[in-house]
């Protein structure tokens, strides 16, 4: 187990470095620098600005400086577009917001998805099963960028129950629609995965044995069925997390929640490279960390896996 943990961390660190290196070189491969504008600056001014941001140095040097800043001081440098703000400030503003609705969406997706899939599997071929399967297929073709406007139409324009956007310090009225829009499709996938893996488990010989020796249904379910049928769900949690983070881009645009996604898309339109890089790196490290946790959890739960 410890060997496996070390091995797994051994993958995570180069992954992060590759992500940083690739995004760094991509930024510099782009035609036009961050200070190219329609009215060209005098060469001396441009040289001064570039010297200030360290852009006159060779690329490998810049990258080492950047990496060093990120690792030692968690410093992602200044924003190229908003000269009075650093990337750290922007991330510090957007990240807690994204984290808050992302966390709740994750809880909803897992907390609703697993029971839904489990009930569908136990009551196979009843109306509950059909309903659950119907919901999960429906939710798959209604991605968050479709869900978000539909929710606004129904709950804000027609029913006038919830505010159509804004954050307001994360009050619950402002959280409901982002969470529903973000979590639905992952909830559906989790339900589908739970259902199919639980059906598989329910058909195994050891469950038949447990039934025939007269164990109560509850004991069979919680002791013998639940754990093995959750394994595929755990391996899906990594991708689901990535999806939730990516989906935050849509949520921020639609509900004006002001999370990281908003700053990322804004930076993409403004070619604000340092902000894009900073957010990519933060999101990337989170993703890598999360898939690490999911893998370790998997190895811990499944005794058959020996690395």
């Amino acid at each position, binding site marked *: 187990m410890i060997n496996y943990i070390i091995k797994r961390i051994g993958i995570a660190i180069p992954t992060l470095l590759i992500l940083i290196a690739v995004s760094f070189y991509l930024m510099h491969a782009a035609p036009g620098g961050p200070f190219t504008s329609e009215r060209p600056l005098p060469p001396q001014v441009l040289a001064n600005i570039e010297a200030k941001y360290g852009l006159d140095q060779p690329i490998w040097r810049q990258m080492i400086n950047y990496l060093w800043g990120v690792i030692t001081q968690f410093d992602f440098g200044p924003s190229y577009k908003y000269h009075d703000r650093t990337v750290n400030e922007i991330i510090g503003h957007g990240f807690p917001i994204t984290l808050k609705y992302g966390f709740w969406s994750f809880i909803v997706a897992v907390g609703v998805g697993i029971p839904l899939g489990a009930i569908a599997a136990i009551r196979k071929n009843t109306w509950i099963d059909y309903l659950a399967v119907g919901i999960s297929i429906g939710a798959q073709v209604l991605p968050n960028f479709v869900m*978000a406007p539909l929710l606004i139409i129904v709950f804000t324009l027609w029913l006038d129950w919830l505010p159509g956007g804004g954050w307001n310090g994360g009050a619950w009225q402002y959280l409901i629609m982002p969470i529903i829009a973000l979590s639905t499709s992952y909830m559906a996938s989790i339900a589908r995965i739970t259902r199919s893996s639980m059906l598989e488990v329910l058909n195994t010989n050891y469950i038949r044995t447990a039934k025939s020796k007269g164990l109560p249904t509850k004991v069979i379910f919680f002791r013998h069925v639940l754990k093995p049928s959750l394994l595929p769900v755990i391996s899906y949690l990594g991708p689901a997390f990535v999806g939730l983070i990516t989906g935050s881009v849509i949520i921020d645009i639609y509900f004006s929640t002001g999370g990281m996604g908003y700053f990322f898309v804004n930076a993409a339109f403004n070619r604000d490279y340092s902000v*894009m890089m900073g957010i990519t790196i933060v999101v990337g490290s989170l993703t890598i960390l999360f898939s690490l946790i999911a893998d370790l959890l998997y190895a811990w739960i499944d005794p058959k896996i020996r690395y």
Partner: protein
Amino acid sequence: MIVANKNKIKDMADNLSESGAGRSLWKDARIRFMQNKAATISLFILLAIVSFSFIGPYFAVWSYEQIDWNAMGSAARVGMPSIESGHFFGTDDLGRDLYSRVIQGTQISLMVGVLGASVAVIVGTLYGATSGYLGGKTDQIMMRIVDILMSIPYMFVLILLLVVFGRSIGMLFIGIGLLSWLDMSRIVRGQTLNLKNMEFIEAAKVTGVSDFKIITRHIVPNLLGIVAVYATLLVPGIILAESFISFLGLGVQEPSTSWGALIKEGAGTISYETEWQLLFPLAFFVVSLFCFYFIGDGLRDALDPKDR
């Protein structure tokens, strides 16, 4: 009369040879697929949508870039769907004909989906088959690379690519294709590991066939079933990714359009009571995705013996 007889004889001959020769894997799969009603119906609906996107333009009164100055800015009053004005699906806010735009969006979205999936399938299959067949250290390194790429948030990298290399459809589907072959390569590798110990591969090796030829001639053809299944499931995934990017305004650029871009426009103007601007593209999008998923499921039941 003679013709009819000839056909009859031919039919009988076909029946005869069928019952004698036994059914091939593909024929078997086709029969199983046809028994799946949802999948068969989906296939027909999808074919209808595809042919609509090619035949539809001949019935259009307005082209997709032509502006109806009457409807411009007053789409809510003048631009509703009607037969008389020639705007079968209504107009958008700029007075452009939504019928033509939806057709164009359908073509582009489907094209990105299919081309992106082909890139992903070709790269993923070759990569996975090579990795699985060669085994050992090479396999480990190749799969480690896949692991690394998998844990990168690819939507962010894709946006980065589009910003750096400019927004174009070409870049879009290369980016999506190059980033979505990873699952494919894992699945293919797993299958290859099963295949490579079979006798016919050993026989090929003994007779001195080169590794490359064994992979392309003997391994890949045997993987076609599973590849077909995951390719059909990949297309809707890629269409979703493309729509997501276009929805952000980073994908397909004006005057071209795609489902994602149309949904974005429709969703943006929803408060002006012009629901058709959202509903028509949304209907095409949702129905097509449904069809792709059902066809993929049907194909999986038909071709993948493990999941049955």
